[in-house]
């Protein structure tokens, strides 16, 4: 049985650009899927197709048990969308915004009013309820936007980069709100460029790039796929790099990489903390002074770089739903360069 959000072979092209190039998704009810990818990977296009804002060229999509292409209006009654840009009317007060959305969800005006009050309370906006949204901080606007998406407590939610541009404190706050929501049984598809965010909130992660899903799994599975743990050493003196490299080679399970300018050496290992202690003793015995040493497990950033050849937050030209070919080529060459540096 398909999940609360299900897509098969979604394709959407804009001119020559394949913004979605055959995307399959399956999100079981009550879980969170993190759609992770750089700008222009096709995340927003996927959300727009699944929320009836864009019609895919081909493919199939079922959301909350309803075929998106056949019954878009029924889908609209069952989903909430919180966009990349906080879509609230800045000249309306928080309360007026929520009431309007409630009425447009076909609630009676009195019911819309009651619901608006509940949401304002839930999102800590009661004090600001009668001020125009123009006077709200970025974090408050995001909360209001999210509240607007929750007016009918939809069983399925889509959030397109909900925390982009928020400061760390507001991001933390929004994460708490999202966690509460999910604990109430809502199915959520969340797009993000922040690997930390996907790691924190999502049960499953799909990594997208150039309109395709290039990897999927839990955060742990993706990390395991990238490789296990590594020892990272930063030596104090440049002259010691060579000796340190020799030491690490003795413990490592693969090639040692060296970053000359930061005096950092990295080697894949197995054996955990016990091995780390041995490395430290050996380095000490050879008289190598170290600034920093540690056992590192791969982050989603490492996963992303190893999968795509470029970092997730690397900005591209034309911050749109699709890449053009030029920027793609450019990015590939950047990715290669980075790899060369790493293995030097």
């Amino acid at each position: 049985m398909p999940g609360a959000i299900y897509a098969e072979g979604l394709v959407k092209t804009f001119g020559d650009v394949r913004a979605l190039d055959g995307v399959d998704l399956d999100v079981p009810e009550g879980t969170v899927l993190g759609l992770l990818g750089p700008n222009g990977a096709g995340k927003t296009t996927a959300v727009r197709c699944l929320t009836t804002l864009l019609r895919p060229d081909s493919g199939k999509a079922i959301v909350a048990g309803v075929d998106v292409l056949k019954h878009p209006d029924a889908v609209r009654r069952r989903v909430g969308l919180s966009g990349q840009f906080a879509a609230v009317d800045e000249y309306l007060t928080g309360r007026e915004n929520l009431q309007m959305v409630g009425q447009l969800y076909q609630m009676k005006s009195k019911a819309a009013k009651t619901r608006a009050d509940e949401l304002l309370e839930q999102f800590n906006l009661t004090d600001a309820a009668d001020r125009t949204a123009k006077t709200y901080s970025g974090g408050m606007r995001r909360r209001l936007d999210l509240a607007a998406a929750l007016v009918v407590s939809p069983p399925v939610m889509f959030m397109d980069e909900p925390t982009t541009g928020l400061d760390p404190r507001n991001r933390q706050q929004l994460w708490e709100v999202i966690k509460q929501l999910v604990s109430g049984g809502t199915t959520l598809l969340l797009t993000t460029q922040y690997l930390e965010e996907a790691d924190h909130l999502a049960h499953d992660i799909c990594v997208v790039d150039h309109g395709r899903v290039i990897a999927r799994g839990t955060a742990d599975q993706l990390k395991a796929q990238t490789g296990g743990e590594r020892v990272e050493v930063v030596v104090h003196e440049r002259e010691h790099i060579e000796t340190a490299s020799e030491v690490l080679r003795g413990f490592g399970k693969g090639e040692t990489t060296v970053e000359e300018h930061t005096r950092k050496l990295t080697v894949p290992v197995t054996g955990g903390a016990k091995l780390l202690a041995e490395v430290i003793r050996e380095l000490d015995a050879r008289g190598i002074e170290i600034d920093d040493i540690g056992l590192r497990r791969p982050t989603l950033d490492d996963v992303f770089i190893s999968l795509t050849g470029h970092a997730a937050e690397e900005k591209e030209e034309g911050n749109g739903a699709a890449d053009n070919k030029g920027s793609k080529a450019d990015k590939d060459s950047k990715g290669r360069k980075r790899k060369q540096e790493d293995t030097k």
Partner: protein
Amino acid sequence: MSAVTDAVQIAAPTNPVGQSIRDSLVVAKRNLIRMSRIPEMVIFGLIQPIMFVVLFSYVFGGSMQIGGSTSPTDYRNFLMAGIFAQTVTFATAGAGAGIADDMHKGLIDRFRSLPMARGAVLTGRTLADLVQTALTLLVLAMVALLVGWRVGSNGDTNAGKVLGAFGLLLLSGYAFTWIGALIGLSVRTPEAATSGGLIWLFPVTFISNAFVDSSNMTPWLRHIADWNPFSATVQASRELFGNPGVSQSDAWPMQHSVLASLIYSVLIILLFRTLAVRKYRSATA
């Protein structure tokens, strides 16, 4: 924070027409609240037509010939129907800019993700513009009275005819806001919608009988002016106000100006509403 409340029941609409009207009114209310919180927009919208009344009356008034008369009073009485008609068509720019702004800010995305009637966002906006246009006309009519405009100055009129003239003017303005809606959905920024909504209105309103007697134009230009939908509304208002300078042209819209104005307005609404709603369904910011 309290727990999330029970899901609110949402049923499929049983009466699509009723839903469409209700949704349009919700959006109209939203736009009217906005307008009331940006009073400077309403005020700027008023200054321009008032300036036109004063400038045309006093600068052009002395040198214009209307129906053989060079009296500035006759020109003033002639002019007002033209200024009123021009003012209502300029609401086009406001509608276009408002909708382009909603696109730009992601509000159109929000609306399109809601289970609301498809045309309601645009209908609501044009209805709100209609209210604003009516207020503008009211103020403008008072200014016109102050500079000496009088209904029935050169012909029969009565309260019904005067109200009928204002009705035709409002209908024509409403029709033009649908052109603005289409422009607003087609351009990328509110600024482009404002200028794109105004530029073409200058030839439309000037190649007409609004400010001069079109019978003095070269023949090809006169034909355009006579068949210009805008001219029909001006001619109809002038006749109904009982003001001087009613065109004696043989062109059908000039002979049947009230009917012509109605037909033109209804056709513009049907055509541009269809195009704009279609555009809205596939709109992307």
